[in-house]
């Protein structure tokens, strides 16, 4: 039987753990608020970018960008995975990686090879054994586009040089503070959206050449999608961590209650035993 002292130490250590999880919960909650603000702030750009690109896709332009052209023969595909840098956020990363692996397995079945680029330490360590072509970790809670362009460029170059024929983005979608779902999205070739139809024949005036402008635009479009994913991922990370830490704190509370009961029982048993020993001893005298 465990002694009262042992149980006391145990209660103390669980209390310490609860302190940590409580603190992490609160930190995550406040960071989530800021992450949500950033998500809202970056949305206008994404919407506007989408609009411009759909104008470009629906217009009758003299120059067709390679990103809008479907390639018949797919030999190799690229994946960009956006994950968190840190753990302790429930099943967020695990679910994301499962979705990524499932999608990759479908390509591998068709004898298509896969190139992977990652953002975030967790994806980097999970996919390292498959061989990464580019990675960026330690972006913190405020992802900046300037930190991300390098890795994105590696994949875009690979597409332009024909080393990959398709590019996918694997990201977490922020649905609510309680729900985040992984999503695999095709980046290139760009899936045309028919939201805004401008049917009559028109073309832009270009400055400088049409190729240069459209190239710059397309590059920014892809970057904006990935940046948006990174910003959203921080929101997902924080809310997932908040939920995970909340349940950890709750569990610690239950555990302390249980241990307290055991402690009381053991203490009571000791007292009872002592009394019966004294009574027994007195009777013997």
């Amino acid at each position, binding site marked *: *039987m*465990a002694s009262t002292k042992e149980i006391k130490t*145990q209660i103390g*250590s*669980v209390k310490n*753990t609860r302190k*940590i*999880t409580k603190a*992490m919960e609160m930190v995550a909650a406040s960071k989530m608020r800021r992450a949500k603000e*950033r998500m809202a*702030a*970056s949305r*206008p*750009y994404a919407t*506007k970018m989408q*609009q*411009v690109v759909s*104008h470009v896709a629906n217009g009758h332009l003299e120059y067709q960008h390679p990103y809008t052209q479907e390639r018949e023969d797919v030999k190799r595909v690229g994946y960009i995975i956006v994950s968190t*840098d*840190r*753990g*302790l956020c429930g099943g967020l990363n695990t679910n994301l990686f499962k979705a990524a692996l499932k999608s990759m397995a479908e390509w591998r079945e068709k004898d298509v090879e896969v190139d992977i*680029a990652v953002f975030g*330490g967790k994806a980097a360590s999970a996919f*390292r054994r498959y*061989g*990464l*072509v*580019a*990675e960026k*970790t*330690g972006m913190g809670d405020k992802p*900046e*586009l*300037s930190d991300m*362009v*390098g*890795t994105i*460029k*590696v994949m875009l170059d690979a597409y332009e040089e024909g080393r990959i024929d398709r590019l996918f983005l694997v990201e977490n979608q922020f649905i609510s503070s309680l729900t985040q779902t992984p999503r695999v999205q095709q980046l290139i070739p760009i899936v045309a959206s028919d939201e805004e139809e401008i049917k009559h024949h028109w*073309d*832009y*005036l*270009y*400055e*400088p050449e049409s190729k*240069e*402008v*459209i190239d*710059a*635009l397309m590059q*920014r479009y892809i*970057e904006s999608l990935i*940046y948006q994913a990174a910003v959203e991922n921080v929101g997902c990370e924080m809310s997932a961590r908040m939920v995970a830490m909340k349940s950890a704190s709750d*569990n*610690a509370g239950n555990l302390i209650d*249980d*241990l307290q*009961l*055991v402690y009381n029982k053991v203490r009571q048993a000791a007292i009872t035993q002592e009394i019966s020993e004294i009574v027994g001893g007195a009777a013997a005298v």
Partner: protein
Amino acid sequence: MAMTIHLDVVSAEEELFSGTVEEVIAPGIEGDIGILPRHSPLISQLRPGELKYKTSEGMESMFVSGGVLEVQPHMITVLSDTAIRAGDLDEQAATDARQRAEDALAGKDPEDMDYAKLQIELEAAKAQFEMFQRISKAR
């Protein structure tokens, strides 16, 4: 009243301006471009510089660090970059990203110590928890 056109200036990190203007002067890559309402569709790259626009309150201006300008007859969109971009800088960043992946494969692995430590502590606490549950059940 003068003719007006809707102007949106956005960057990846925030919305910089949204409203009705009478005239826009943008720093196009080949020189400043003045745009009045009902301009024909135009798409242009921007160089880092001053973007001027005329609202009902007069001329205002802001700095944009390059980007793309799109003009449709009824609206103007400026997709501003968040940082000044240059081809060779991007190239450098791409090389760095590749290098990091190679370093990581070679086994140089900078892990986040604090979280890793916390995770171990939590695991330990969990193991203790399970052990004590077993003890209290066995009693």
